[in-house]
């Protein structure tokens, strides 16, 4: 049985095709101006990769910020449920999931079946989200992918960035640059500030072993290693942390297909 999950995030859209045992194809592309268009394109991509046609799929479930805009999905499920379910498929021992996306940050407590027990969410503020790092990259001129590693190699130690607000932090950072501080030291301070913010969200649900991190920011080593250090826990990260939500959606699609087959 072939199933698909599609996760339309604020910044990127992800899709997976799964069979009963594994992920057979996955794709990620920028969401751009239209979630519906991105959903079709990424779906075409994963179908081509898996050599299947839309009609071969037993069920498609959508999730994420733009989940209601997927005309070809049979059902939509919240991204919180999908992340918990997706992480559980990779790492069954995980009870705490931290999902950091382009425009929000969620901490989820889940049970042994990947069901959500409790969650805390920040979707009101850019601090602690991918957007903050994108802006930091833009005004420091450091490519997004280098922010993590460089923030871990301060020259004279982190320079404190007073504000976690992405708007005010921009002023702080530009001021520090003008004052002549090393970029790595400033990046260390800025990443410290948002990790503090992320940690308060996790503390609202109470971190329990094991911990997994999903979403785009899981690729930022600077954020991950600081979260690990602050919580005193090692973070489990899937090979492609951005598709976890889509995997969860595909697992819900399997439930649905099995139910309707009965």
């Amino acid at each position, binding site marked *: 049985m072939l199933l698909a999950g599609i996760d339309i995030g604020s910044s990127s859209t992800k899709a997976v095709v799964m069979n009963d045992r594994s992920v057979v194809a996955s794709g990620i592309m920028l969401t751009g101006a239209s979630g519906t268009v991105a959903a079709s394109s990424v779906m075409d991509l994963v179908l081509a990769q898996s050599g299947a046609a839309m009609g071969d799929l037993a069920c498609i479930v959508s999730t994420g910020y733009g989940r209601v805009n997927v005309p070809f999905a049979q059902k939509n499920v919240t991204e919180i449920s999908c992340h918990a379910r997706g992480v559980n498929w990779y790492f069954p021992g995980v009870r705490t999931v931290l999902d950091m996306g382009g425009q929000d940050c969620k901490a989820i407590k889940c049970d042994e079946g990947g069901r959500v027990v409790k969650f805390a969410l920040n979707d009101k503020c850019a601090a602690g989200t991918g957007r903050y790092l994108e802006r930091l990259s833009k005004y420091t001129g450091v490519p997004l992918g280098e922010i993590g590693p460089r923030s871990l190699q301060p020259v004279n130690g982190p320079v404190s960035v007073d504000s976690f*607000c992405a*708007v005010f932090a921009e002023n702080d950072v530009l001021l520090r640059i003008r004052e002549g501080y090393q970029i790595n030291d400033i990046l260390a301070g800025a990443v410290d500030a948002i990790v503090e913010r992320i940690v308060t969200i996790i503390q609202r649900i109470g971190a329990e072993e094991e911990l997994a991190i999903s979403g785009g920011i899981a690729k930022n080593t600077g954020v991950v290693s600081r979260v690990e250090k602050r919580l005193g826990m090692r973070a489990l990260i899937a090979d492609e942390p951005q598709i976890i939500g889509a995997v969860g959606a595909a697992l819900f699609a399997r439930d649905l297909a099995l139910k309707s087959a009965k």
Partner: protein
Amino acid sequence: MVTDDGLLTAGIDAGASRIKVALFKGRRLLGHAVLEGGAENITEISKRALADTCRIAGITLEDICKIAVTGMAYKYVHLEVEHINESTCLARGIDFFMPEARTAIDVGAQKSLAMKCKGGVPLKIRYSEKCASGSGRFLDVVAATMAMDKAELSRLGLSTQDFVEVQSTCTIFAESEIITLIHSDAKPAEIARGAYRALARRLYGLLLQVGLEDVVCVAGGVSADACLLDELTKLAGCEIKTARQSDIVMACGAALAVQ
């Protein structure tokens, strides 16, 4: 210089975007200056603002007995000055400009301060300083996104009573939301109104935390904005007045605090 009617004192309000100076003799305002911050050193701008004020008042810098400093950037003013906290300065300033006011709100470029006060003494205070959404910065970003200056944004907002909701609290997210609204053919005037309404709601929330009492006095650089005042008045349901020289209220309060 001590005379019968009080000391000569100056107050410097070093804000996030501008430096304001006021000069007092007793309770008489002798002169003031407001200079843009920009990239120049804050101490240098403060010196220039002081010199301008002295010239207006016809005195020399040496005549001033005491200089007080307040505002977000106070620690960058490297002069022989006494630091006075913002809430004291606001309460003193309000008492000077509008003694009948029991509630005050100062809306600045980077933070807002709501207060209940009486006789120049702050009774209860609440700051909004951690997040740009409750400050003038929010309007700066909205105006920049709509490719206009703040005066235009205000005029545009005042041209209608209708509005579209700007739902994002975070200024960064609001920027994207406004771009989406523009592309979805929402009327620019209604977007502007919506943005003012969103800011006014947050300021109103801050006022409720200190307790809203007649008369409300608004101070600070952003408060002269007619569209913001219009929205705030609608929400508060009581009279909201702007201090006569709203942008120097803090500077005056600082000068008065060291009388």
